[in-house]
């Protein structure tokens, strides 16, 4: 966040333009952002209440402080609660660290400060990379709902029962935005605590933003796919932390990390993890530099080249350091390929791509006396291309409802510097006693609160907009090009698709004035469930008012801001309604045809005479089955619908798969 907001808001040298969303929305003043996560480190400067006035009268929450050791709220951090009964019911230990909203992990403080933390000048990681950490809605109040605990098993650490209770609490407390950087396997909406909780939240006007998941780049991995959720993928910003590996044969290889320089400015002996293996360890385990697999006699004073796998990235060089290594080169395996991440390592380190790692191992194996050097990390801004999609970011298609494109949007989620816990080191090793108030993290967990922060600003600016209107504004103003003005790429540097980025990369300044929105209300969501085939009596249980499924309930006509046709056979017609949220204007439609598909729009001109006016239109989507250029069966093809009055550009991705 020391640079991500500048990147999104196009600020130069930290100067906030007067037409920026930040200025227009008073930096989110009066808004309350809740976070379902690992709690909060209340002493963080990101949550200091200096300069904050009285707590908004609508706030009904509180600071839950059972053991008095613990979390004190203030006029910035106005709520902190914890929910652990579902964790306990599955065998989780309840003790002083699991009966508190204090964040012993760091994840919750990071995400909450990204969404709504103060501006904190002088934020750094172990003294390097000084900058101003920034929350998206820095004048908003924040509340932590702790639902994630130390893992018991492989199942995950945030239990459904606790998540539902936290949603209940947040709705009752009066939050405006909920940021939820967690998720499970994609599942049926009515058996998914996030989908259920967020449905009730949205019904009460609370906007819910969730992370898409980190199971990319495989297709069909996106989670939190309910249409009432804003689902967020992760992409890069135009900043890199470069750390070069220099080999004695003259090769200089660019890697990344956040670490200090090797002492002495000289070359050091270089060995692979396998060469440093302990007598009782396997070479495969030693290559991963796992604990207990390295022989200190062999490793001491050397740079160790480790393969990224179960251990070396997670422990951030701790095992290499314990074995006496002076530095670590972390090499991707084939699976992790080009994805390199600037982690704060315990010792001088550089993270290399698979291809570059192979060059290092080849040098080690072909040289009698291999030597190397690792330069200190340096920050580079204005890197190109940016943004590009993180390889880890989960992708569509949506396995629960293929007719709804997910994720909805992408935002910065790689190498994000934000607040951290004071309870542990970012290397996550108990032996590492260093503490830092800020650290870098990567994941869709980090992109999600960026969107939550923007939602806080939009809520402030447009208090009358529905959660769906806010979502539509964010989606239809997203961009699909990077800073080279070419189509956005994915982690392997090939062209990304809406399955990675949804409607594109978020543009907060555009989102405040989208021109038109695709709005939805609770009954639309109930109609959506009817169209999915849920029976009338089940759906009635969601509604206090008498409700009956429309006879023509259709997923095709669900007023979503993106358009997805699954298994197109012949042609279909899709209806949408747009609402004018700007001045009177005349909009014209433009279509970018998906390959092998013809799309027409009727009418292709929409004239709005007043704000709030709604107009409908129809898209007819036809497979060019008669021609050689028809869409290949089963494959997805991508296009775009654009409405513009010359001032606003209202974009919807079109995604089609053919039968």
């Amino acid at each position: 966040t020391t640079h991500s907001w500048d990147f999104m808001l196009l600020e130069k040298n930290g100067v906030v333009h007067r037409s920026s969303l930040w200025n227009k929305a008073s930096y989110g003043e009066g808004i309350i952002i809740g976070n379902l996560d690992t709690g909060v480190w209340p002493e963080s400067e990101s949550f200091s209440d200096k300069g904050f006035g009285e707590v908004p009268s609508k706030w009904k929450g509180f600071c839950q402080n059972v053991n008095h050791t613990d979390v004190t709220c203030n006029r910035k951090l106005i709520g902190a609660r914890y929910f652990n009964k579902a964790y306990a019911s599955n065998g989780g230990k309840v003790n002083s660290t699991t009966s508190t909203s204090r964040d012993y992990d760091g994840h919750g403080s990071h995400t909450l400060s990204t969404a709504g933390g103060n501006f904190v000048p002088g934020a750094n990681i172990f003294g390097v990379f000084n900058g101003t950490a920034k929350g998206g809605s820095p004048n908003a109040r924040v509340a932590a709902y702790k639902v994630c605990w130390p893992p018991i098993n492989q199942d995950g650490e945030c239990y459904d029962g606790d998540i539902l209770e936290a949603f209940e609490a947040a709705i009752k407390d009066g939050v405006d935005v909920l940021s939820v950087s967690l998720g499970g396997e994609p599942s049926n909406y009515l058996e998914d605590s996030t989908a259920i909780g967020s449905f009730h939240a949205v019904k009460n006007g609370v906007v819910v933003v969730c992370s898409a998941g980190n199971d990319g780049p495989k297709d069909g991995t996106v989670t939190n796919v309910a249409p009432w959720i804003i689902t967020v993928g992760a992409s890069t910003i135009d900043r890199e932390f470069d750390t070069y590996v220099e080999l004695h044969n003259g090769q200089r290889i660019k890697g990344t990390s956040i670490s200090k320089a090797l002492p002495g400015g000289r070359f050091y002996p270089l060995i692979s993890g396998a060469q440093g293996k302990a007598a009782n360890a396997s070479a495969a385990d030693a290559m991963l530099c796992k604990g207990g697999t390295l022989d200190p006699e062999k490793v001491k004073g050397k740079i160790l080249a480790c393969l990224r796998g179960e251990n070396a990235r997670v422990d951030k060089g701790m095992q290499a350091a314990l074995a006496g290594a002076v530095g670590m080169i972390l090499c991707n395996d084939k699976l992790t390929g080009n994805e390199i991440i600037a982690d704060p390592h315990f010792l001088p380190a550089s993270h290399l791509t698979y291809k570059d790692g192979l060059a290092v191992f080849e040098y080690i194996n072909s040289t009698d006396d291999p030597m190397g050097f690792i330069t200190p990390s340096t920050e580079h801004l204005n890197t190109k291309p940016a943004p590009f999609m993180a390889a880890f970011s989960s992708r569509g298609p949506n396995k629960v409802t293929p007719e709804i494109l997910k994720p909805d949007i992408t935002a910065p989620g790689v190498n994000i510097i934000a607040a951290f816990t004071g309870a542990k080191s970012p290397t996550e090793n108990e032996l590492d006693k260093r503490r830092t108030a800020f650290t870098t993290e990567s994941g869709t967990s980090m992109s999600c609160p960026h969107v939550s922060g923007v939602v806080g600003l939009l809520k402030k600016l447009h208090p009358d907009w529905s959660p769906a209107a806010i979502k539509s504004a964010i989606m239809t103003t997203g961009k699909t090009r990077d800073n080279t003005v070419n189509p956005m790429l994915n982690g392997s540097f090939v062209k990304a698709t809406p399955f990675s980025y949804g409607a594109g990369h978020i543009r907060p300044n555009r989102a405040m004035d989208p021109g038109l929105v695709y709005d939805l209300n609770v009954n639309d969501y109930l109609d959506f469930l009817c169209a999915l085939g849920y029976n009338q009596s089940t759906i009635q249980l969601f509604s206090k008012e008498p409700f009956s499924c429309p006879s023509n309930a259709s997923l095709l006509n669900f007023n979503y801001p993106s358009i997805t046709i699954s298994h197109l056979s012949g042609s279909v017609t899709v209806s949408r309604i747009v609402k004018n949220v700007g001045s009177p204007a005349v909009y014209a439609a433009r279509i970018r045809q998906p390959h092998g598909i013809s799309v027409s729009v009727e009418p292709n001109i929409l004239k709005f005479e007043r704000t709030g006016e709604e107009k409908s239109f129809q898209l007819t989507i036809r497979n060019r089955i008669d021609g050689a250029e028809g869409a290949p069966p089963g494959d997805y093809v991508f296009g775009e619908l654009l409405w513009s009055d010359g001032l606003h550009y209202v974009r919807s991705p079109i995604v089609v798969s053919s039968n």
Partner: protein
Amino acid sequence: TPAFALKQSYIVYMGVHSHGPEDAMTSVSKVKNSHHEFLASFLGSTERAKEAIFYSYTREINGFAATLDKAEAAAIARHPNVVSVFLNKGKHLH
């Protein structure tokens, strides 16, 4: 046999409450009682139901979280006032 059946924690989701938000606070105990009574009709006694339920969702979400065996969960899922019954599983931080 049922007496030794494996107990696991489940979420029983029943949709939305019929009460409005303004009277939610006053009806918390009423809702809790109704959840206890509802579950008692499957478990045989209110005491057992009270022991089994560890969360009653009383304000906006209608439902509860309880420790049940598979057969009990399956029977509850068939009730017309129940939307879904699912295992209380863990999600991951992203």
